[in-house]
């Protein structure tokens, strides 16, 4: 398999260069105790590793597997050629999000953080547990600032667009 990258997928030259110098040695994935955990997903093998899969697609940001990356940096530490697959995958995630292709769970989480300040919804059961344990109640007081931030950076627009497309 030849590593192919859609060059206009990212304007960060160093990321593109990094993907070009991957020698397909597999070190970043196949050493079970030190390398990429996503390799354990049943679709990958030493012949077609998780990192080859991410780096080898024509349109990497359309590859749902990019969402398996946990940003642990192990590939970066393990790679003898300083390829840094994590940087490539993170930029693909950003592009996918921009294009409305984010994993639905990720999209829900991002939208939730902006509108409530929390990644996970506050539930009646968690409030009750906190009260039983004598802990301060949680509140959504950060949400107002977060919505202003998301408005300014354009994230709110992306969320609205994505929601519109979903309907």
């Amino acid at each position, binding site marked *: 398999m030849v590593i192919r990258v859609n060059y206009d997928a990212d304007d960060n030259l160093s990321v593109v260069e990094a993907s070009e110098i991957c020698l397909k040695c597999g070190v970043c994935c196949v050493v*079970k*105790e*030190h390398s990429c*955990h*996503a390799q*354990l*997903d*049943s*679709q990958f093998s030493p012949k077609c590793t998780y990192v080859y899969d991410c780096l080898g697609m024509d349109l990497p940001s359309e590859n749902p*597997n990019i*969402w*398996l*990356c*946990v*940003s*642990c*940096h*192990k590939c*970066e*530490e393990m790679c003898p050629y300083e390829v840094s697959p994590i940087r490539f995958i993170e930029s693909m*995630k*950003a592009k*996918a*999000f921009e294009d409305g292709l*984010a*994993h639905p*769970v*990720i999209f829900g*989480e*991002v939208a939730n*953080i*902006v509108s409530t*300040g*929390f*990644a*996970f*919804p*506050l*539930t009646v059961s*968690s409030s009750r*547990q*906190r009260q039983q*344990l*004598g*802990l*301060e109640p*949680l509140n959504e*007081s*950060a*949400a107002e*600032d*977060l919505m*202003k*931030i*998301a*408005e*300014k*950076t354009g*994230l709110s627009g*992306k969320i609205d667009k994505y929601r519109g497309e979903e309907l």
Partner: protein
Amino acid sequence: MKYSFFKGCFLSVRLPHLERVSVNVLGELGVELKETRGFSCCPEPVGFLSTDKLTGMAIAARNISLAEEEGLDILTLCNGCTYSLRHVNHALKADEEAREKVNEVLSETDHQFRGTVDVKHFASVLMNDVGLDRVARKIEKPLKGLTVAGHTGCHIVSPPEIMAFDDPFDPQVLDKMVNVLGSEPADFDLKTLCCGWTLTNYGDKDGADKLLGAKLESMHRAGSDCVSVICPQCFYQFDMGQLLASRRLGLDFSVPVLFYLQLLGLAMGYSLEDIGLKRHRTKSSGFEEKILEALG
């Protein structure tokens, strides 16, 4: 020792009993936790910080600025929160252009990032600020005879230049923290393998089960009575995740998980009830018997 307390949303919403025991235990060690008003999600590194970097950095910078306004370093209870906040703190302290860009976004709020505080995981605070000597002096019931598999997790160690916690390929810090409890760290071969959080949430369940099964077997083979973690997501994987995976895989053993501060609480004389063990999903009678024996 006073810190701005960044409890993190996963722990405070899903695992509040860990917040309770953490506050109690740290308090007894002289760590004062200030309830800073207005913190939001860190934001979470895998889905947010890596997908919309500018917004993610601005949210993290806003959180850091709240602690700056109080003149306090941040104490966290989660590897993910530590990763997001330390990465952004590091990037914005080092890069003036990025700082200006983020502060321009923050000008919509009443906050600005100045770069005046540090972000510390509670394990770093125990190691460097409290000191293991002081921790050792608080141990009333050494957990003798207990073998503990230390799972450090990924985000707290990488990259070491930013996280400054431990060697990603040969982590030793958690084992030292286990030793101080009077218990024995397990020597298991898949020590640095991830807990599998993203595979469970965004990947295929078979892969996640395979990963968890391999990791648990490696701990079990090494004679572990339990696994100790310093991250709530890892905790959830080893607790709820183990319950589900072991049913699917038909495992005939279990490795109960404890947040490190729960184990420390036990060694300081807390009961199983005090540390909230009844809220855990993965149980092991062998583990509970050993603990009751140690607590006398």
